[in-house]
């Protein structure tokens, strides 16, 4: 995959955000792009089922505690992980704040982040899926 393809894909995502489309399936050579817009209800329903996530997006990373979810230490910082990024089992992928305590959540598995299910500042429950990770074997995005 070339950098041109990535920037094309990113602009497509931006374009879709502005559009009224709910889903987009696109194949450009070796690049396959599957975009789906989640209504709030749907997102929640999907979150409820860890099995569902495993089937669709990969192995879920579950929140080890109830708390407030943050993808970065400070709001101006870049998120610790982005979709598509490779993570090791002991990589910190997000923070969960419980009152004055901040806990780092490690991926627990090795693979590529395919999805995140919570927004900054959102309350997440104990064992709520917060990310999905796909391992190398089932990695659908082919390396060049």
């Amino acid at each position, binding site marked *: 995959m070339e950098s041109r393809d990535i920037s094309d894909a990113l602009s497509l995502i931006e374009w879709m955000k502005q559009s009224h489309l709910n889903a987009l399936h696109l194949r450009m050579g070796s690049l396959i792009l599957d975009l789906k817009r989640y209504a709030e209800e749907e997102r929640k329903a999907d979150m409820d089922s860890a099995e569902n996530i495993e089937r669709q997006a990969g192995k879920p990373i579950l929140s080890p505690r109830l708390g407030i979810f943050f993808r970065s230490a400070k709001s101006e910082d870049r998120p610790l992980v982005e979709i598509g990024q490779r993570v090791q089992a002991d990589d910190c992928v997000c923070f969960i704040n419980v*009152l004055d*305590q901040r806990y780092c959540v490690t991926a627990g598995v090795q693979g590529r982040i395919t999805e995140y299910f919570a927004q900054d500042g959102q309350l997440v429950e*104990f064992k709520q899926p917060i990310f999905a990770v796909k391992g190398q074997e089932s990695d659908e995005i082919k390396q060049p």
Partner: protein
Amino acid sequence: MKKIKSVLVANRGEIAVRVIRACQALGIAAIAVVSEADRESLPAKMADRVLCIGPAQATKSYLDIPTVVTAALGAGTDAIHPGYGFLAERPDFAETCVKHGLIFIGPKALHIRQMGDKLLAREMAAALHIPVIPGSCLVRDLQEAASFGEKTGYPLLLKAAAGGGGRGMKILQGPEELKSLFNEASAEAGAAFGDDRLYIERYVPHARHIEVQILGDCHGNVIHLFERDCSLQRRYQKILEEAPATVLTPEQRLEVCEAALLIARHIRYESAGTVEFILDQDEGRFYFLEMNTRIQVEHPVTEMITGLDLIQEQIRIAGGQPLRYSQADITTEGHAIECRINAESPERQFCPSPGRITQWQPPKDPLVRVDSHCYEGYVVSPFYDSLLAKIIAHGKDRPEAVERMQTALSHFLISGVETTMPLHRRILMDDAYRAGKIDTCWLEKVFLGNAKA
């Protein structure tokens, strides 16, 4: 004070159901927090929103203060009701709620702390000229306990300064028992409360446990809702409670209710609370025991005879409303009995009996109330206390309430787990119980003692 629009229920089991019902009656949203083991529980099904706060172990879920408070803040609730047990009498919990802008539906942290130190509470009662059991003093070591015994004579009672529920409590029949029981009590208290200090007092052999229900608001109004008799106990755990206490003369009732009011007024107590006394039946005298700064398990018997809803009143008080009743408004009607039905086997030393409830058919009688979180198919978890249901029966007098309870117990069908219902049926048939000739030791020493032989 802001209006309470939503309440987080920081508890489980029947009291969580009870609090959710009170919220629903007041048009307030109820948010349940559950451990992983309680995801399928009735509170989870009834609440407007459910949040899973942690694993089954209570220390990592129901007892985890930062997590419970974060759940309340994250869900945008206005207030937290602690129920009884768990965090209900933890002053640091009440403080943390207030610090984060949440209303704690209960007394002030200061009151919980004041009354939580049993020795300080006794000193306060004594200063108000309320009788306390002779002797009550802290004993530092065996020698001090021995000299106290020589001075006042036996039997004596050793108690944990920090606790309740019978842990660290030992009856000393004579000086020869002192050495072993003192060390046992001290170790038990240390293990249960992290505080091995003990106090010693004269043991009252033919005692009744009488307690007075109190309601106070933040405007300085305090009323009592008369008394309950909770003398039927096993290992200091109440089994069956009644209201009113038929053993009392009108003068004694007045005396004990006034004493409870005196303490509550003195500290300007807010919310529902209970002042406990020991009635020495041989001498006809009351002694202050302790004050519990929470709603109690047995609160429904008071509700049945007064017609008030104590949880709803707690919520109103926490919202800053003045009490809706003056003392003159509080009257009682008839008699109420509560049986605590536990998933335990009375035949096997009250060993817990967890498992799936395969049949659950509560009695249908408008004068019988069943407070429970159970249903057909519910799995009674081994992680928590074994209370399945409280059956509360009302009658125009005590004999009618006893009869109604008998009928209710015989119509209550529970299968899948063993319960203490057979024990309650036998108690209600007992002549000594029916005649009211019992004391706090009767159930264990006489009734169960006889049953064993």
